[in-house]
């Protein structure tokens, strides 16, 4: 055995867990190996340190222990009783539902409780009324078209009013322009005496 192998077995050797042949081999190695002997001494030091730890002074209070156990048993019994009551109640409810045909349901905003009820047949599925749907769709399209026409008419009226106002503004501005032109011409004649072609204004 080399040092590495011996050192992995020193703990077992120290605590008497090595068998006779292992012990013999280790002791032979230790006799000629100061490093492993030192290692063993260090482990013995650790063992000594562990031995120094005093057992904590703990005293189990038997009376408290029995009280604790009694309390636990009582809690357990209460839990079982609660469980038994719950199961009994659940079984009773199941019995009422299955054998007395009790029914509790929510109908139009109120709770309805009944017994000996015949099973409620589900409402027949409504047949799809395609004609009504198509009619509703047609009405909707017409309404939309009428609405669009109405909007178009209003838009046309607004446009006509706007055009009339624009024409009126143009006429007014032309009249003002003509008046201003005449005024300027009169001033020119008064100042220069005659108005020749090409002269301003």
């Amino acid at each position, binding site marked *: 055995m080399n040092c590495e192998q011996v050192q992995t077995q020193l703990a077992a050797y120290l605590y008497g867990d090595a068998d006779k042949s292992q012990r013999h081999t280790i002791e032979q190695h230790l006799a000629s190996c100061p490093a492993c002997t030192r290692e063993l001494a260090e482990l013995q030091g650790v063992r*000594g340190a562990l031995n120094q730890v005093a057992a904590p002074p703990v005293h189990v209070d038997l009376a408290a222990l029995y009280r604790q156990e009694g309390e636990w048993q009582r809690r357990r019994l209460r839990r079982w009783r609660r469980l038994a009551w719950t199961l009994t109640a659940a079984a009773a409810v199941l019995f009422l539902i299955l054998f007395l045909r009790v029914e509790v349901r929510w109908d139009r905003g109120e709770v309805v409780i009944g017994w000996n009820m015949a099973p409620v047949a589900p409402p027949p599925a409504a047949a799809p009324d395609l004609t009504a749907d198509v009619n509703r769709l047609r009405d909707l399209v017409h309404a939309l078209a009428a609405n669009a026409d109405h909007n178009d008419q209003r838009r046309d009226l607004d446009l006509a009013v706007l055009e009339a106002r624009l024409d009126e503004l143009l006429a007014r501005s032309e009249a003002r322009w003509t008046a201003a032109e005449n005024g300027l011409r009169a001033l020119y004649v008064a100042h220069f005496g005659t108005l020749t072609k090409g002269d301003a204004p």
Partner: protein
Amino acid sequence: MESTDHVLMERWRQGDARAFEELVRRWEGRVARFLAGYGVRRDLLGDLTQEVFVRVLRAGPRYEPRSSFQAWLFQIAVNLARDATRRRQPAPWPEEEPATPREPSATVEEAEATRLVEQALAQLPEPLRLVLVLRHYEDMSFPDMSRLLGAPASTLKSRFAAALGRLRVLLESLRPDLEETER
């Protein structure tokens, strides 16, 4: 002649309350020391040791004399210790924890040595610490430990060797003069 643990268990199951008391007195110190070595805080040791015996009381009817009483008892203790250390983080070790002697005869040095060893043990990984404490303080054999922890004995032996080696390093780092004190 001192009754074996099996005999005491049998007597207790037949209604002899004194047999249970004898068992408690026989094992309470060892259970407490195991819990302390495992890393349970000192202030919780009393309650947890008490809890171990409450569980023993509760599990008594299911006790099988085929296995060793020690392994059965420590199975309960290991489970509780694991729960306790998982639930409650260990209190940080104060630099100057009052070195109150645990027994009137214990010296301040002994208390300090105990504190250092427990501090070093607490720093070991749980699988190593568990094997070390069971082997050293409980003198539990590796086959018994194997049944208790559900790991092969050879694995546990390796863990034990590793634990001892790492504890040495930890103790050296915590108290460099350990060797001089020990020698």
